[in-house]
């Protein structure tokens, strides 16, 4: 939202603070100012000048123009505007003046030296007209100004600050200055209202006020009036529309002007019928539905309430009578409609902040006064139409001052609180010794202020938070409750990074193609209804697509690397919130061939928990069919270890994907150190092709076997392998005798033979 410093100064006439200081104070006490932009700095240097000669230049559409002004005397300029003519008063810009960011210099144009230029409305920042040069009636009437830009988000709760008068009230309160009300509400003619208005539902439209004017002449507004609107980014259209925008920019009350002769019969405010539609002022047609509040006449909708007017009843050059609407609409309804139609207008942006119903008649009074200025001869026809529900006055708020001091943490005196609230035009009276009764002004009562908590902010911000002494809170000392799963994840991260893995963070979004690559259908994902791009429409239910991208990208500039991610898989659950499963994925990549990557991951698994075991399993499509296993903790499968299918990556990449809800760190359990010595012997077992080292080891058990260690695998050349193990035997209570060891060895060999295996 843009605010003109000059406009604020008109409303706070004794304001002496600079635009910069004013902006800073607004930021510190009211709302966030985003910047200060100087506009119209050329005014004062450019002057109105009479055109005394216009001569064609041969071979050019430009003409040589001589102008005369009191300040610069007679000057000759080259002008290409089609509307330049002898006798008109134009705006002359001498060399040295900055126009649209560029400094004017004397220059030869079409062979003629141009000593400055005649400017268009666009070049002067008065309007958007660049068809010809500006024609001045009297003086130019514009002065240099500064535009203070306020962040709209910080005005979300302040309907009153969507107009200059509201901001001027804040500025007056901040500096302790007087505020001038631009509205003089004189009684309207005590005549019969000229237009009949009926409201179907007062919840959706609490108030509808209107006036009819006749003897209207539609023409451009005076330059200063256009300039003011243009500086705020409001496009000047014609005197009638400009007045509605001016009042909106001043009082925050959106208004609409209908061509009264095109309105058939009376006004009805009601919900649209399903089949209705409207051609709007912006040139688009909108299909309406039962949730859309519309303004209708006998022929149907003529405006979408609080959003936009219809084109059929629009003001045009031929308009001679206008119906000026100043109404109040329910914020939620306007917002719903504007969201549904994807149509945000200056009006809807204000109404959705909950505008003050008390403001409608004030706005009409202000508009009537302005119309007298910009549309000479205009007359009010008939009396005021003002249909409304009972206007609510909120109950006063009781403000206990000791409570207030406790909330702020610094002592506040009754005088201080009273003064601040009164400056913001709250009604304040003392209830008791230490209590105020605060009456909330109507423009703050629609949504913004409803309880004493809201008054804490009013007083705090006006004192200025810089003026508060920080105070240490008095709280009980207590150790916080633990969060074991988070601590576990932190431990795993440390462990992985110590083992050489670099942590990556991937996005939660995947596309159908990525999901399909890892065997997942789009239907098995949670779908984003409004994705940022069509290829980010699914929530990841596997971390693998992200890791795969990391592998492919990093393989472009690295021959070998390791990485890991801890993140959440998101699984849809019918009728329930999705399930979020924490996963750890670690990957080892190398451009060279070999099986080392998988072994590295097995080492990582051993670090995570030595009790984890590996069980070869059936490969999925993205896995190397001969290099895949399930990772087990006890009997539970907690994830998969595999080499990525060679079709998915150049080089080799091994991946382990673990469910962290199922992975547990090894529980530490102490056993006394054995007192009696142990004995070792080695066994070499001859096994057929693809007999697993682990399944042979599983046979090498005996009550006396303390540990079985795999030593090596030696291919025998006939497809069979010799697998060697070292067995360590011991007893807790005595040294084993040679006989005991021999018997244990015999038992083990028997078990091997029963399983069809032979010793080498």
């Amino acid at each position, binding site marked *: 939202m843009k605010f003109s410093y000059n406009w604020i100064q008109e409303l706070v006439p004794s304001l002496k603070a600079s635009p910069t200081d004013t902006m800073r104070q607004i930021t510190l006490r009211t709302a966030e100012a985003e910047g200060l932009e100087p506009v119209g700095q050329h005014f004062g240097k450019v002057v109105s000048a009479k055109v005394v000669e216009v001569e064609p230049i041969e071979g050019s559409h430009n003409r040589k123009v001589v102008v005369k002004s009191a300040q610069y005397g007679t000057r000759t300029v080259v002008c290409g505007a089609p509307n330049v003519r002898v006798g008109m008063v134009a705006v002359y810009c001498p060399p040295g003046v900055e126009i649209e960011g560029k400094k004017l210099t004397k220059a030869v144009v079409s062979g003629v030296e141009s000593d400055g230029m005649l400017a268009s409305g666009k070049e002067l920042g008065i309007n958007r007209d660049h068809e010809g040069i500006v024609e001045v009636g009297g003086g130019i009437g514009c002065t240099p100004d500064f535009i203070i830009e306020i962040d709209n988000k910080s005005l979300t709760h302040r309907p009153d600050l969507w107009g200059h008068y509201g901001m001027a009230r804040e500025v007056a309160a901040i500096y302790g200055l007087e505020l001038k009300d631009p509205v003089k509400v004189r009684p309207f003619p005590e005549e019969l209202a000229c237009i009949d208005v009926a409201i179907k539902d007062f919840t959706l439209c609490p108030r509808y006020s209107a006036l009819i004017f006749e003897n209207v002449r539609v023409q451009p507004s005076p330059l200063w009036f256009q300039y003011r609107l243009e500086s705020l980014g409001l496009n000047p259209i014609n005197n009638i529309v400009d007045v509605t925008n001016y009042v909106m920019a001043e009082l925050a009350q959106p208004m609409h002007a209908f061509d009264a002769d095109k309105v058939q019969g009376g006004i009805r405010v009601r919900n649209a019928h399903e089949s209705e539609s409207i051609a709007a002022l912006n040139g688009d047609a909108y299909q309406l539905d039962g949730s859309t509040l519309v303004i209708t006449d006998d022929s149907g909708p003529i405006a979408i309430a609080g959003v936009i007017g219809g084109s059929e009843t629009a003001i045009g050059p031929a308009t001679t009578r206008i119906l000026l609407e100043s109404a109040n609409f329910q914020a939620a309804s306007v917002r719903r409609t504007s969201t549904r139609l994807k149509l945000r207008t200056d009006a809807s942006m204000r109404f959705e902040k909950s505008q003050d119903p008390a403001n409608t008649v004030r706005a009409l009074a202000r508009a009537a006064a302005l119309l007298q200025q910009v549309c000479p001869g205009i007359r009010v026809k008939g009396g005021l139409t003002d249909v409304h529900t009972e206007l609510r006055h909120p109950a006063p708020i009781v403000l206990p001052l000791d409570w207030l001091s406790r909330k702020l943490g610094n002592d506040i005196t009754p005088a201080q609180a009273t003064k601040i609230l009164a400056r913001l035009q709250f009604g304040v009276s003392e209830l008791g010794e230490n209590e105020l009764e605060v009456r909330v002004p109507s423009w703050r009562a629609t949504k913004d202020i409803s309880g004493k908590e809201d008054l804490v902010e009013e007083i705090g911000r006006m004192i200025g938070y810089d003026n508060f002494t920080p105070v240490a809170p008095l709280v009980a000392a207590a150790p916080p409750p633990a969060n074991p799963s988070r601590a576990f994840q932190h431990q795993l991260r440390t462990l992985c990074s110590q083992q050489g893995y670099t*942590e990556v963070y991937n996005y*939660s979004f995947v596309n159908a193609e990525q999901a399909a690559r890892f065997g997942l259908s789009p239907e098995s994902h949670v779908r984003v209804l409004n994705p940022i791009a069509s290829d980010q429409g699914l929530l990841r239910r596997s971390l693998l697509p992200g890791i795969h991208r990391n592998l492919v990208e990093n393989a472009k500039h690295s021959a070998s690397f390791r990485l890991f991610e801890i993140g959440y898989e998101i699984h849809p659950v019918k009728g329930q919130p999705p399930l979020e499963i924490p996963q750890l994925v670690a990957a080892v990549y190398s451009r060279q061939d070999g099986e080392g990557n998988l072994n590295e991951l097995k080492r990582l698994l051993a670090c995570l928990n030595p009790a984890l075991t590996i069980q070869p399993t059936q490969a999925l499509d993205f896995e190397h069919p001969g290099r895949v296993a399930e990772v087990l903790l006890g009997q539970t499968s907690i994830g998969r270890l595999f080499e990525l299918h060679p079709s998915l990556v150049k080089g080799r990449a091994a991946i382990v994907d673990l469910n962290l809800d199922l992975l547990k760190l090894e529980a530490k359990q102490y056993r006394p150190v054995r007192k009696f010595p142990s004995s070792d012997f080695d066994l070499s077992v001859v096994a057929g092709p693809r007999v697993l080292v682990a399944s042979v080891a599983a046979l090498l058990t005996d009550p006396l076997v303390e540990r079985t260690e795999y030593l090596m695998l030696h291919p025998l050349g006939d497809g069979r392998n010799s697998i060697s193990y070292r067995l360590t035997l011991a007893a807790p209570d005595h040294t084993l005798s040679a006989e005991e060891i021999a018997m244990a060895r015999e038992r083990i060999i028997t078990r091997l033979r029963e399983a069809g295996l032979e010793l080498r």
Partner: protein
Amino acid sequence: MSLADLTQASLSRVASAATAEELEAIRVEVLGRKGTLANLSKDFGKLSPEERAAFGKDLNAAKQSLESAFDARKAGFDSAALTARLDAEWLDLTIPPAGQRPGSLHPLTQIQREIEQLFTSLGFAVLDGPEVESEYNNFDALNIPAEHPARDMQDTFWLDGGFCLRTHTSPVQVRGMKLLKPPFRMIAPGRVFRNEEVDASHEHTFYQLEGMMVDRNVSVANLIYFMKTLLSGIFGREVTVRLRPGYFPFVEPGFELDIQCLLCDGAGCPVCKQSGWVELLPCGLVHPNVLRLGGIDPEEWNGFAFGLGMTRLVMMRYGIEDIRQLQGGDLRFLKQF
């Protein structure tokens, strides 16, 4: 050969021995049990007592002089051998070691942990919340009903079934109030999502840390104190903070907290857009409606809440110029942390 001659001859052989092995052979030949010296004492019994005493003395003297000569010569060989070995064992210690170098933790993980530890030391519980939230927890329970214009402040990713990707970590406030009984202090770090176009300074996925303290008589002055202490802890130096009004429906009053620019100390620089201040975190006293919806009586308890932008903090700390690098997965970037 006489004792004197033998001694003399042996000493000169010791002196001229070329290797430790040769020396050892000489020692065995001369001093061994069946050596030449032992041979000489074979006739010991035939001597008179006087001759025996004199010969014994000479024999001992000869043995001692030979032994010390052998020892000295042996020590010489040993030390030469050691010197030679040490010299041969010279290593180029500048050769890089083989084996895996440690990896690294993501910078966000690192800063998150640091801040978690800081808060834990101040008695805050660390809570988790899901990335997918109900509309109720993300908005309604935080005093942002449907049709509230404040919903525009956070462009939301909507999902099937009325769920959304959380737009802030604030819904964990709602969970925290149900989980913990007042008085309590909690933080909730996590991933949040906004439906925004991505560029060097905007991301649709970023990290926040929510904080909330609920107790009796928590004041604005407490909040200012706490934020100042906390930020000094995070930045490891004294920071100047400034509070100004900010609107967030779940707090009342609400603030934007700015810190004096750490790069220019408030003098004005490109980082602070010449203002001397950097907007850092929104905070405020918890809105009574939020407490009520969380089952806490606002007449008895109140508190403050704040949201710290972790992604922002990481970028400030390391001077990272492009936010997209944080989730780009490029190891050349990540390995630097």
